[in-house]
């Protein structure tokens, strides 16, 4: 089943044409990766899907509902969560308060979900009353992901989750993404670390200066000479 369909979007920053006629889709249960160099437009696409930016053309639909013009704050209730680039946790709030904000729209008792976030990220439990700004980069990424999970998303969009992390933490984060996927969450992953992303992705789209240059399954792309040369360091 098609969960997310992005159809022919064009996004501008003032006069700069950042996204050109991009179309792609994410099926329920998939991990789809958007890879490409810095500035190729990966983050812009995620921001457009989550309503922070608007496309001049085309449409975006989520679970067969048109969300092209839906306000950003209404999307989480529809089951979409976006972990933005640079984590963007609330640095002056505690870890617990950040998780509360992730559950902002929920009217039910979400204590159990906090427990399960803590089970997934034990470091967060140890630091639950600490101000988020004092966490390390890896812990902040965990908090950003935990916060997004509090909204019980069916689609989790992750923007550069490995950015600025030590290799051992990158492995850990990718391990968690896999686990989340296995537990039934559909994932749209934006990454510069193409090797890691292609290794776990069912399908991937390669972006070059705002356009989809190549697409295919993770395996196909990882094996392609062209992709290897351009993104996998040889």
């Amino acid at each position, binding site marked *: 089943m098609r969960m997310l369909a992005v159809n022919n979007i064009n996004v501008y920053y003032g006069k700069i044409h950042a996204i050109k006629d991009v179309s792609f889709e994410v099926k329920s249960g998939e991990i789809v990766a958007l890879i490409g160099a810095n500035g190729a437009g990966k983050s812009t696409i995620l921001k457009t899907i989550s309503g*922070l930016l608007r496309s001049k053309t085309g449409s975006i639909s989520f679970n067969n509902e048109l969300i092209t013009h839906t306000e950003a*704050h209404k999307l989480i209730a529809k089951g979409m969560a976006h972990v933005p680039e640079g984590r963007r946790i609330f*640095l002056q709030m505690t870890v617990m*308060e950040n998780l509360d*904000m992730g559950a902002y729209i929920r009217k039910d008792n979400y204590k159990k979900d906090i427990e399960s976030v803590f089970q997934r990220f034990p470091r967060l439990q140890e630091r639950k009353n600490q101000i988020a700004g004092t966490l390390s980069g890896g812990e902040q990424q965990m908090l950003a992901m935990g916060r997004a999970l509090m*909204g019980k998303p069916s689609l989790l969009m992750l923007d550069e989750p490995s950015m600025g992390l030590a290799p051992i933490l990158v492995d850990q984060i990718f391990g968690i993404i896999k686990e989340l996927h296995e537990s039934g969450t559909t994932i749209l992953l934006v990454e510069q670390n193409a090797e890691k992303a292609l290794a776990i992705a069912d399908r991937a789209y390669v972006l070059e200066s705002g356009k989809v240059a190549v697409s295919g399954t993770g395996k196909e792309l990882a094996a392609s000479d062209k992709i290897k040369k351009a993104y996998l360091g040889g």
Partner: protein
Amino acid sequence: MTEFFQTLVSGLSLGSIYALIALGYTMVYGIAKMLNFAHGDIIMVGAYAVITTVMISEAIPGIVAVVISVIVCVVLGVTIEFFAYRPLRKAPSLTVLITAIGVSYLLQNLALLIFGSEQKSFKLDFFDMIKPIYIGKVYINGITFLTLVVTVIIMIALTLFINKTRLGKAMRAVSEDKEAAELMGINVNRTITLTFAIGSALAAVASIFYGGAYTYIRPTTGSMPGIKAFTAAVFGGIGSIPGAMLGGILLGVIEKFAENAISQWSNAIVFVVLVIVLVVKPTGLLGKKINEKV
């Protein structure tokens, strides 16, 4: 010694008024990242709302006039935000600043048109109902006592609201990062409206105490306490709620002691203190410098 405490009491009372107004400046700055220079004039409107209500009929109790004044100010603050500031959400900050100054002149001139330029006496029935009290030899009149008590209650309530409630936390989230807050499902525009509403309600309360202390109002009544409260907010660290409380109280106390020592210099001394604080600690007393992690 009596004189010291007497001055301290009047300083605390004046400082409470500044603090209530400064909270409006600082909360709006924290959330909308703008300096709402029309905020001082909300006090003036609040005071006129009170005397107009009382003028309609002497039978209307003062407390009803206060409630009406709060409602008028909240509606006004929210309306100003909607029509004047919201369309400028993405405009350069200078544009917004000039708009705010424009709104301030608009309010003053509307008041001039409606109420005339002569000063009007400000009095409410419950001012005399509270009997003056003596602590030792220190005299505290009814309105001063009321100012101190109500301000303390409001500060505690506001602190609890901001730190403990869902909406209060949402306000903090919006003030830190609007986009991230939006992604959490927080309606940022509605949160900004709420902030203006709270700020304006506090200004209405401040107008009662200000009117009570100075007994007369005129269309420009809001400017001086407005600018002093803005100073207090900067003094305490703009954007910081405890900062506005502390800054307001300190400013009032400093002003009263300065007035006692060399009366005609009191305003100058207040601003010299501000300059010194800003030179030593540019973020204000409780302001935090945020180092963003990239």
